[in-house]
């Protein structure tokens, strides 16, 4: 694993459901897998001071973000008996209702995928330098902050 160059997890724009379905399909040849767990982050139409969010525009410190994604990946494989792990995050504009984060883990056993997925998603939220501009319907904006 150590010689593998971190592959970018970023995709321009929203992650579509067909891509996700296809990603699931590709795992059907891996017959040691018994359990998959998938997390999807979707952009919410939050109402803040009477204004409704219509999209989030994501930017990132890409080099650092990709290193962090790589560290999270390595540490998850070390901690958990995973067969596969895939992470995709949007950059650019993602409208409300669209998907901006896709995390997919697979393992022979279910207990493992539950623990691993939550670990990975929390690490992404905490450690990866991605920034989100919440754009309101009236074109004003505010900056999103993970809690």
């Amino acid at each position: 694993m150590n010689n593998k160059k971190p592959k970018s997890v970023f995709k321009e724009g929203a992650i579509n459901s067909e891509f996700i379905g296809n990603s699931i399909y590709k795992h059907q040849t891996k017959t040691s897998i018994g359990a998959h767990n998938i997390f999807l982050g979707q952009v919410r139409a939050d109402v803040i001071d009477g204004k409704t969010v219509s999209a989030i525009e994501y930017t990132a410190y890409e080099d650092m973000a990709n290193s962090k994604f790589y560290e999270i990946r390595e540490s998850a494989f070390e901690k958990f008996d995973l067969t596969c792990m895939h992470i995709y995050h949007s950059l650019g504009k993602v409208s409300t209702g669209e998907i901006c984060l896709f995390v997919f883990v697979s393992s022979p056993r279910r207990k493992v995928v539950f623990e691993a997925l939550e670990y990975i998603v929390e690490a992404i939220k905490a450690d990866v330098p991605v920034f989100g501009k919440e754009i309101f319907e009236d074109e004003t904006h505010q900056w999103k902050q993970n809690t």
Partner: protein
Amino acid sequence: MFITIKYFGQIAEITKQNEESMEFSGRLVSELLDILYSKYDALKSKDFQVAQNQELVFDNTEITGSEIALLPPFAGG
């Protein structure tokens, strides 16, 4: 020492640029921040972390790297 400073998100809104390079003769992150605070007054009220060569550092970390970044709160996912 010649360093490059990258700005992101709401920090870049304040600095009105994504990146700048400057000659830095100090030693610590805090000294660099003092320079930036005097250049961009609005930075003082903003919440951000500093990364050096893509790792988070503290105010009292020594500046050794050529790439510094000011990172506002993360919002991934």
